[in-house]
Every structure is written in structure tokens, then in C-alpha cells.
């Protein structure tokens, strides 16, 4: 009984290792596809609470104040990259985020519900579907 049990648990441990490895490989494959397939974007889109706030080209330097009620995020576009320089949110995750410039990269401020996304706009690169 005891022998059987320990044999069984050894088999399960082996399954654990396989399971974890498969998970890791799947995640890294997804990650590799995601990061390698991206191009540099040319447009910055700001949405607040799911609604479009504004859109700016990435190649023109500017500073945008995103002020909704008492919430404030300041977005800076500089040298073709966008970053949040200042924010009223308590965690400061958005202002600690590195500058974004590749297609699909985004800075997300959960407390203020602000999402800043880089995309490619233009006729030939228009998305098939907007989800």
C-alpha cells in the first residue's frame, strides 16, 4: 500500500515537471511570436474608460494632459516615443513604464482607466477588425 502510494506520487511529480515545462514552452513561444512580430508604430491612441480620448502622430513631439475629474496623466511624445511623465494615480506604474514606440505596446494606468497604445495607421496597414 505504502509502496504503491509512493510510486504513484513519484509518477505525479514527473507529470508535474512535464506540465510545468509544457506551460513554460507554450508561454515563451507566445511571447516570442508577440515580441518578434511587432513593427514600429506611428500613431498613439489614448482611451479613457474604454472610450477614445485622442490620437496623436508619434513623429511630432508634444505633451498631452489627460485630465478626467481629479485624475491626471501627462503623456509626452518625444523622439518618436511616448511615455507618461506625470500621473495622479497612487501606484505610479504608468509613469514608471518605459517609453513605448512599437506597434501594440501600451501604457496602462489602472486607477485612472487610461490606456495609451501605439498603432500603425494608414490605408494599407488598416486593421481588419477593431475589437
Amino acid at each position, binding site marked *: 500500500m505504502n509502496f504503491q502510494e509512493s510510486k504513484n506520487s513519484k509518477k505525479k511529480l514527473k507529470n508535474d515537471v512535464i506540465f510545468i515545462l509544457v506551460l513554460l514552452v507554450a508561454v515563451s513561444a507566445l511571447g516570442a511570436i508577440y515580441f518578434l512580430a511587432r513593427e514600429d508604430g506611428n500613431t498613439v491612441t489614448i482611451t479613457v474608460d474604454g472610450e477614445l480620448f485622442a490620437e496623436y502622430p508619434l513623429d511630432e513631439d508634444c505633451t498631452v494632459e489627460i485630465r478626467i475629474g481629479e485624475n491626471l496623466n501627462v503623456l509626452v511624445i518625444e523622439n518618436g516615443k511616448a511615455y507618461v511623465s506625470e500621473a495622479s494615480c497612487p501606484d505610479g506604474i504608468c509613469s514608471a513604464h518605459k517609453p513605448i514606440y512599437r506597434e501594440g505596446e*501600451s501604457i496602462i494606468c489602472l486607477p485612472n482607466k487610461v490606456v495609451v497604445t501605439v498603432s500603425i495607421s494608414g490605408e494599407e496597414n488598416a486593421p481588419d477588425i477593431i475589437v
Partner: protein
Amino acid sequence: MKNRHKKIRKLTFLSLCAAAAILLSYVEALIPPIFTAIPGIKIGLPNIAIIFILYRFGLRDAAVVSFVRLITVTLLFGNTLTFMYSFAGALLSLLLMAIIKKANFLSAIGVSVAGGVSHNLGQILIAMLLLDTAEIGYYMIILAITGIISGIFIGLCGNFIIKRLPENKI
């Protein structure tokens, strides 16, 4: 009479587990975040208690204790926003852990890894829903890896307690 005695014992024990889970949530909140740039990276200490209950008592009791912990922690430290994130994570991870445990081909470590990853997945899904954007999905790649690592640790802890507290001693 015997039956009633048993029921009270179980209730007391589950209450103790809930208290331990709440305390573990507090301990976890005291640990400073490793990367401030990536929110959501957590060890998931309360899951030690939940996984233990899942193995010793079953899904129903684990769900009740998990929910009691969630409500208490929300009232003490959280708000509606944190509640929604935690609820989504807890629900998805509990269901997945129960299914994988039932399938009976992984040990508590594998079950807890699945729990850790699916907890993060639940939170990402609710973030997608609340923010109305799919962009946050790429966080999942990082969170999946940290979920696996913390899941292994939690699984080891859970395994240890499951072994030390056999059914006949509760």
C-alpha cells in the same frame, strides 16, 4: 451526537483555515513588490490554505473559505476594484485547480501551478473587460511565468501541510 461533534470540529477547523488565509493575505501585502513596473506579481500565499482545504475537504469548502477570505480582505484593505480583480482570479483558479485535482494526474504542485497561472489569467481577463482593451493581454506572458514560479513554491508549501495533517488528525 457524534455527528454533531464532527461537524463542529470541521467548522472550527475551516474557520481556522480562513483566519490563516486572511493573515497570509496581510503578510503578502506587507511584502514590497519586486517590479513596480509590472503589477499583479504576487506569491499567492493564501492559496496555501485554499489548496490544503481543497485536498482535505473538497471544492465546496475551499470555495467557501476562499470567498470568506476575499470578503474580509476587501473590507479590511481593498475596494470594489480590487474585489473584482481578486474575485475573477480566485474563481478561475479554484475551478481549474478542482478540475485538475479531479483528473488526478498531477500532484499538489502541478495543481498549484495551474492555480497560480489561472489566477493571473482571471485578473487579466477582468482587466480586459474593465478597460475594454485587449492590449493588456501581453502582460499575461510575464504573469504566466511568475505564476508558474510562485505556483511551484505554494505547491511545495501546500504539499508539506497536506502530508503533515492527514485526514484522521483533523
